[in-house]
């Protein structure tokens, strides 16, 4: 039952990470992964997405979220990878992986991690196109999602 957190500018290989994650589990019947992908903008194509973060606090905040998930559900390992820096449409921004004896725990823990990462981990996104650059606003629905837990 270990927590692994990587905050990095480098890309990562979802497949490779997923396979290693599954192989490291014992007694677990369920593994859930979530991957976040940079979406293109509809009318004004994205040149790049820039992700800023707060070094130090980021790792601390994600660590707290993961620890809370571990206490709340019966889990094996928990993994979080989150990138910062310049990304292009189609790039993987981040992923989480959760393992559990039973599927419901793995699913709920992954959703919980995502809901908290969205609005409690110190990342900010700036979209850059040929015509504009602007910070992505936080959505009310992301803040509201926390009331579920």
């Amino acid at each position, binding site marked *: 039952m270990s927590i692994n957190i990587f905050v990095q500018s480098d890309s990562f290989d979802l497949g490779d990470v997923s396979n290693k994650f599954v192989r490291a589990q014992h007694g677990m019947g369920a593994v859930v992964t979530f991957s976040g992908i940079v979406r293109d903008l509809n009318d004004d194509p994205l040149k790049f997405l820039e992700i800023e973060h*707060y070094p130090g*606090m980021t790792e601390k905040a994600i660590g707290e979220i993961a620890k809370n998930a571990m206490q709340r559900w019966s889990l094996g390992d928990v993994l979080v990878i*989150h990138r910062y820096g310049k990304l292009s449409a189609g790039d993987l921004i*981040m992923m989480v992986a959760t393992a559990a004896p039973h599927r419901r725990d793995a699913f709920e823990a992954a959703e919980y991690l995502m809901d908290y990462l*969205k609005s409690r981990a110190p*990342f*900010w996104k700036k979209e850059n196109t040929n015509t504009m650059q602007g910070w992505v606003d936080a959505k009310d629905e992301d803040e509201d999602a926390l009331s579920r837990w």
Partner: protein
Amino acid sequence: MIKVLYFSWVRERIGQPQETLETRAENVTALVEELRRKDPRYAMAFSDLNALRVAVDQVLVDFDAPINGAKEVAFFPPMTGG
């Protein structure tokens, strides 16, 4: 001496990512008042506290949180991770 950090559009409006300040403010709100008086850029960045979040020593807190003994205070808009 306290380190003050700015992220996202707060950093852009203030024009620097961080600075070190001498302050006698006892809580975040008092520190914000001091910063507002420094310069119009600060006044603009801190014009609407509802649009801002604050962390003291890397932990998210409310604006009435004390900062006595804190090493760093960070101001930023609501986070957009994931």
